[in-house]
């Protein structure tokens, strides 16, 4: 534990780096997934291919992607931009599907009611479809955020410094606390971001959490069990 206490500064600055890289990637991936997911949802024909192709991106080993991307984009392999782009691609791989699922989860009756009241198509998308897809999209975003933050550590293998540094450096120097500190820091950041997203969701989508004042008949489940 000594090592951790003596290197709090290092852990802190790496954490900030890590957070910055991950957040940019998450935001980029999210921004790209909304239109992609919308297209996939709207046009049934392209849905299958788009969803499976983006899903397949997820299976490309991260190390390989980090080395191959620079060849395709011309950017330097060790640049932060390269890592962020790779992470954003993985984020898209997860998010597109949840955007499609989210739009699918909107009750067609609600959508039809909106049309019946005189919403135009574009207006309806932003005022009705997107917010109502929100909870599912948010759930996807939370998964994306956590996995992006944890995945970002591989950046160190191509020379982008973040909390992954503690893993390779700890291994070379055989300092177990250093590796452990890295894992804890990554997990803590991931869970923190997850929590922030959850809170942001509550704030942005108050209807999902407003309590049901009328007593909802609970599922009979629990009492049966008591009875059997």
């Amino acid at each position, binding site marked *: 534990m000594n090592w951790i206490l003596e290197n709090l500064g290092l852990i802190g600055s790496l954490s900030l780096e890590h957070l910055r890289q991950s957040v940019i990637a998450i935001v980029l991936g999210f921004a790209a997934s909304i239109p992609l997911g919308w297209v996939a949802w709207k046009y049934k024909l392209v849905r299958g291919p788009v969803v499976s192709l983006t899903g397949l991106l997820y299976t490309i080993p991260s190390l390989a992607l980090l080395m191959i991307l620079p060849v395709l984009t011309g950017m330097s392999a060790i640049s932060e931009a390269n890592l962020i782009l790779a992470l954003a691609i993985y984020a898209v791989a997860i998010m597109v599907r949840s955007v499609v699922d989210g739009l699918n989860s909107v*009750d067609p*009756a*609600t959508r*039809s*009611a*909106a*049309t*019946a*009241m*005189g*919403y*135009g198509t574009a*207006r309806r998308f932003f005022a*009705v479809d997107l*917010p*109502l897809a*929100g909870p599912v999209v948010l759930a996807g975003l939370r998964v994306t955020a956590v996995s992006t933050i944890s995945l970002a550590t591989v950046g160190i293998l191509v020379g982008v410094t973040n909390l992954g540094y503690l893993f390779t450096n700890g291994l070379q120097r055989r300092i177990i606390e250093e590796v452990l500190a890295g894992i804890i820091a990554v997990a803590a950041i991931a869970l923190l971001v997850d929590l922030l997203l959850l809170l942001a969701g509550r704030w942005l*989508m*108050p*209807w999902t959490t*407003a*309590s*049901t*004042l*009328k007593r909802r008949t609970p599922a009979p489940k629990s009492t049966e069990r008591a009875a059997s």
Partner: protein
Amino acid sequence: MIEFENVSKHYPDGTVAVKDFSLQIPAHRTTVFVGSSGCGKTTLLRMVNRMVDPSHGVLRIDGEDITNKPAVELRRSIGYVMQNSGLMPHFTVAENIATVPRLQGMSKAASRKRALELMETVGLIPGQADRYPHQLSGGQQQRVGVARALASDPNILLMDEPFGAVDPIVRAELQEELLRLQRELDKAIVFVTHDIDEAFLLGDQVVILAAGAQKLQVGSPSEIIEHPANDFVASFIGAQRGSRALSLKQTEHGTVLIDAQGRTQGKLVEDGTVQ
């Protein structure tokens, strides 16, 4: 006045939902479409606000072909209430009611004021304005649905089984409320149900439909009960009450009316005033 002229609707999968349907729906009156499931009631209704476009034929409102008006505008000018209310789950009650005024560009404050007025009209208390739909009972949700449909003060109100999902006691309450509202508002209401009792209670004009939106009988409730057009109508209007053929029976508590199975259906009072 709404006018259907030889209207048909074929869905892309080949279903003929409406076949050569013509009807005049008077203003300031309630017209009820009644018929069993799948006979085309919803399709007829949704043609009025162009949620469904007819395959053939013409629909006119006050003499003008409705295809001449942009669909979006037309819809904003017609109230529409559906089963399960169709409320936006992410809007509060007030926001839901104010939807159309907002779409028409009314300011936030003015539209909220309007929403609160309407809540009173339909019997909701102002304290519920900032709730979300799922925090209301089914009956209250339907009231919000009605308020929303009334928000732009439309001449026409379309109601598709608006009370189908609430329990009988609340339903009776909502029906009474609608009768009261209609006395005040005087809209052209087109109402869809498959409950013949509801049709007779609410309708000035009742249209009994069979598959393909075939008109079996059109008339006032009394005309239909007293003179069913054919056996099918007779059995249809009787089906839901065992039978409407009643006879008198003397009991120690007074004269009651019994149906063909000998079950008591009501109590005879001397005149038409409430007992």
